[in-house]
Structures are given as C-alpha cells and as structure tokens.
C-alpha cells in the first residue's frame, strides 16, 4: 500500500503523462482518420489509392517498429523534436488507420437510399456527405471508435519503453528505489484500468445520447 502513498507524485506524473499522450494522439488520430476516410470514398482515384495504401500499411505495421522508425529514424533527417511529440505522431498515425476503417464501415451502414435521395435533391458530393450521410454514420461509429481509442490508450505503454514519461515507465524509478515490484505493477495496472474504463464510460455516455436505437 505504501508504494502508492510514498510515491504518489511519481505515479501522478506517469498517469498524467499517459493521459496527455492519449489525448493528443487521439485528436491526431481522429483528424487523420477522418481525412483518410474521406480520401477513401472520394471520386478522385489517386486520393483513393493514397488512403488505401495508408490504411493497409499502417494496419499491418507492428507499433514497436513504427516507434523504432519514428523515434530513432526521424532525427537522422535533422528533425529533432521532444520524444513526446514523436510518440504522439507514431501513436496518432497508427490509430488513424483503425479510425479510418471504423468510419468507412460506419458510412457503409447508412442505407443507400439516403445518399441517393440527397443526390436527387441536387446536393453536391460535399453536401450529401456532410449533411446527410456523415451525421447518420456518426451514430453507428461511436462503439468502434471507442474501442480504437481504448486500444490507443493501452498502446501508449510502448512509449514508456522508449523513455517518454508515462505510467509503465514509473516501474523503473520505483524498482531503483527498492520498492516492492509486484505492488508497483499492481498500481500501474490500476492506473491503466482507470484510463480505459474512463474512455469506455465516456463512449457509453455518447452512445446513450447519440447512438442508434436498434
């Protein structure tokens, strides 16, 4: 028990680091995922190809390899940023592929007649997508986007191993100080549970408010 009370600030820093990583990477992933999803349904061939390649490659890349390439590779091009920014980049890009697929699957759940009706009213591609299809798709993508973001929060643990301040990384400090390693891990586990359950609760609330009544 005193592992937690003695080192509350260490755990707090790690916890906040994980939350920060998760939030920034989520925003990046949502923006990029939305962009890629719109590329994948666009009428322009080269954008479709770009979106497809982006999703296929990133979905099949081990996240550790991506971290390895981004954190240790980009500095070779003279791009020197804090490790935290690199970690957000890697996590965000990786998750954007899954968000993109969730959004695309959501667009597929909107009945065809909706898009056809919008078109027959003379709406343009942008209008029918933005005013008719996406608002309806939004309701059915809440659960899959939620699980993608939970996966993101869990994946942020990898950043800790690349020496970004983060919850999992706290074990190193504490084991050097000679605290019981098993209890340290118990509290780390509790920290992750709090984060994933919070995201899950948030998306449950969203689902109750906006989700499709089925």
């Amino acid at each position, binding site marked *: 028990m005193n592992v937690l009370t003695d080192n509350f600030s260490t755990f707090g820093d790690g916890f906040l680091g994980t939350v920060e990583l998760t939030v920034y990477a989520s925003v990046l992933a949502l923006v990029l995922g939305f962009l890629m999803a719109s590329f994948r*349904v666009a*009428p*322009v*061939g080269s954008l479709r190809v770009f979106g497809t390649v982006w999703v*296929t490659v990133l979905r*099949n*890349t*081990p996240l550790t390899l991506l971290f390895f390439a981004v954190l240790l590779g980009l500095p070779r091009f003279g791009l020197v940023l804090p490790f935290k920014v690199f970690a957000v980049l890697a996590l965000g890009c990786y998750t954007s592929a899954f968000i993109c697929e969730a959004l695309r699957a959501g667009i597929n759940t909107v009945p065809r007649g909706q898009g056809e009706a919008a078109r027959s009213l003379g709406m343009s591609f942008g209008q029918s997508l933005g005013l008719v299809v996406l608002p309806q798709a939004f309701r059915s993508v809440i659960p899959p986007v939620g699980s993608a973001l939970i996966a993101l929060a869990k994946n942020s643990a990898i950043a800790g191993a690349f020496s970004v301040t983060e919850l*999992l990384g706290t074990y190193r400090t504490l084991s050097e100080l000679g605290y019981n*390693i098993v209890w340290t891990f118990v509290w780390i586990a509790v920290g992750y549970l709090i984060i994933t359950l919070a995201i899950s609760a948030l998306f449950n609330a969203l689902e109750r408010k906006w989700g499709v009544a089925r």
Partner: protein
Amino acid sequence: MTTANALYDVPGPKTRKRHRLYGIASTVVILALLGWILYLLFDTDQFTYTKWMPFEYKGIQELLLRGLGNTLKAFGLAAVLSLALGTLLAVGRLSDHRPVRWLSTVVVEFFRAMPVLVMIFFIFVALKVQPLPALVVGLTLYNGSVLAEVFRSGVNSVERGQREAAFALGMRKVHVMSYVLVPQAVRAMLPAIISQLVVALKDTSLGYLITYEEFLHAGKLIASNLDYDLPFIPVVMVISPIYIGMCMLLSWFAGWVSRREQRSPKTGAVDVAPAEPGTLLPRVQ
C-alpha cells in the same frame, strides 16, 4: 464500391474532366511528397556504400535470419498456446456452472483490459522470467482472452434452431457443442481468428523491448554499429518491408478465407465474421 456510387452520380463529361484535374493535382502533390522524402534520403547520405555494406556480410545476414527465426518461433508458440487458452476460456464462459463461468469471465475481461506490454514487463521484471517465455506468456494471456471472446460470440451466433434441434435429438451438451455448434462457429469465425493471429504476430515485436533477440533487435544491433556509419535508415528500409509483408500476407489470407466462407453453404446458419482485428475491451455497448 456501392457506397461510393450512392454518394455521387455517374459523372458526366464536365465532372469527369474536373475529377481528372483533381486527380492530376493530387497525384502531383503525392509524387512531390515522395520526391521530397527521396531527396531527404539522398541529402542525408543514406545510400552511401558504407551504410549498405553490412548487408553483404554473411554474419549479418545470418544475424537477421536468426532474428526472423526467433520472431517466427515466438509467434508460433504464442499462436498455438493462445488458441488453446482461448478454447479453454471459451469453454469456461459457456459452462453451465456459475462459478466456472464467473471465474473465466473475470480472467478474460482482466487480461483484455491490460496493455499487453504491462503484462510482458510484469512477467519479465517482477517474476524474473527469461525473455522468450515472458513474451510468449504475455501474448498468450492477451490473445487467448480475445480469442475466447471470438469463440464464444461465434458459438452464440449460430442460429438458435441448430442448438434446439440437436438437443431435441437427445444429444448431450458435449455432443451438441462438438458436433453441431463448434464446427459451424469455427468456420464462420476463422477470418476473425486469423486476424487476431495477425495482432499476435505484430505484437511479437514487443520482445524487442525486453531484449528478446528477435528481428527488430537484430536490426537495432546492426543500426547502432559505428563501423558502418550508423546505418539506421537502411536497416529500417530492409526490416519494415519484411515485417509488414508478413502481416499483410496473413491479413490477406484472413480476407480470402472470409470471402470463401461467405460463399460456402456450410456457414448458412451463422454470419461470417469480418476479418478485423478483435476489438479490445471494456466493451462499449
């Protein structure tokens, strides 16, 4: 591409022209981006002989191959063990006895909620296990739990009539399961199972973080060698196509199985699962 057709009309000559213009513009932008990356690569001297020289040596090639072998070994062990654990946990969750059901539910939900890396580190650091067993056990606990959910939802998604008919013929639960429900469920769930194995294959790279001598670790050894002028980018350029290629091959196989099963009359009573990586806990529903 049915949705794409629902989003816009079959374009007329004017729109086709406009789209072609957009197409050319975006192609130019994408090509410019690629060109810029290529320029950066040349500009920072990534293609010099010294940096690519190590790949000519037999010792280095063997190091990479050994790493690849270790990755595949970890993957094979984790795959077999997590299929076994998944079966066991699914049997537990479908059990008629409440304590068994309750216990396996707790196990499944806990291991799905934990980051797999935390488990691997716990086993490696706190229990002081060798890297390979630590990696395999961590992957097995996580993927086994996800697979248990896949199996369970597969069995539950077999049409109710199948189970009822089997019970009506006087079969016991064991027989209903093994002769009627599971064969259909496994066929329908095969794509989802293979996709989960892709996740396991990707996660073997976590072994790098606990100094298991796998593919990425071998790459790191070469990349940090001063004799070859720190050939970091060349190493990434050699390793990532192999890694991504292996995962893509397995993903493609999952997709192929999914398309085949959808046509098969033997899965008529079940919905074939889409080939997607299993989503991860706390079920948002």
